[in-house]
């Protein structure tokens, strides 16, 4: 279970006890068009806050410049099966009461669903659930793939 509530500058996230939550960006490419491999912010708390405002107190901070989609993926074990649940959120339009808005809820099936971003002949295959790790190899692989896509030569 994951539940997110925008509250002013913060996004309050609540997950089932025993879950670990990972927070990252959906499409890891910066304003300068440079792909990046990120360490997903991880939290073992069952209730915590997220913001991109660095001057207010929160548990997790987002440092990305863009108004790109962010996601928070909670993972836990049910028996011997690893389960996922997530949300996608982004910055709310200017003038909104809250800084963030939740745009999508991701049940387990949506988290483990393979997604494809095809550019030319190269395909970036990825899943939300792959973000839920403490190993950066998947993020590095994806940044490298996006770099290849952005540097594809057309003649």
């Amino acid at each position: 279970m994951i539940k997110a509530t925008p509250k002013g500058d913060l996004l309050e996230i609540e997950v089932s006890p025993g879950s670990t939550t990972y927070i990252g960006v959906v499409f890891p490419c910066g304003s300068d068009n440079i792909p990046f491999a990120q360490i997903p912010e991880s939290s073992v708390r069952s209730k915590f806050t997220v913001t991109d405002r660095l001057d207010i107190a929160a548990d997790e901070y987002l440092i990305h410049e863009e108004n790109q989609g962010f996601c928070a993926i909670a993972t836990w074990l049910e028996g011997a099966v690893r389960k996922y649940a997530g949300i996608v959120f982004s910055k709310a339009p200017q003038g909104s009461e809250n800084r963030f808005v939740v745009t999508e809820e991701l049940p387990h099936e949506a988290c483990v669903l393979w997604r494809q971003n095809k550019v030319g002949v190269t395909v970036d295959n990825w899943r939300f659930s792959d973000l839920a790790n403490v190993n950066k190899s998947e993020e590095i692989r994806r940044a490298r793939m996006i770099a290849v896509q952005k540097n594809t030569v057309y003649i």
Partner: protein
Amino acid sequence: MNKVEYSPDILGIIPENVFLEDCVMVSRMNYKPEILTVPVIESSSGRVVRTEKKQCLWMEQLGAQSLGTDLLLSGELRSGVNCEIEPFNGGYKIKFPTGYYVVRPRKEKEFSSIHSYMTKDETKVYNNIFIQKMFYSDFLLTNPLSQWRMPFSPESMSSFAVSWQMIDANGGKWECVSPALQKPAYTPRLKHFAILDASASSVGIVQANAPGYDVGSHSFQVTPGCKIRLVFINSPLGAKEWESWSELDLDSGEIKFKL
């Protein structure tokens, strides 16, 4: 006892950057140029005609802490060279040619600075450590360490900044919020960083010709000409996990910070 009052001057911090002492690091991003094989596509047909080796650029986030670079960051910040600082979302972005750091104002009771500074009086060397800009014993007497958020930097001794969420060997993040929420292996860190405790192995002078440390005066005797290293060691579970040091050259009186 030769107790020194804290000032940014004695640590060589240029006035423009003093505000960074109240900041902690959020993250570090490094540019990563790499030669990648990219497809060359014929636009009219959409076919791949060949591949090319091309230098591509991407960035890698290294988290809030990267061992071995904190002091380098600090050294450059002290002298104000090779970096640009610009406001960023209520914090600051510290730009270097190889990447950038993002720092934010510290929260209440969150560690942001610890510095070592040594002075000498002939052959007597005085050990001054400042925590949060206070002489360490004063700080520890008035502030129980366990109440502080200590995402503690292994390299923090002479560093500004800046951060301190640990990234463990597996790439996972350890943030010190309360002992109950920490990974078990790291819990002892809070107990072991006990400067006031003379028997603690966490901080001590381990390389000197005649260490003989006097806990009362925070001083020790040395022979002329010898070099002193003040070494900080963190030893959770009895195993040395990190150390950092500053050095005092008694011939020149020069204090060197490890870079």
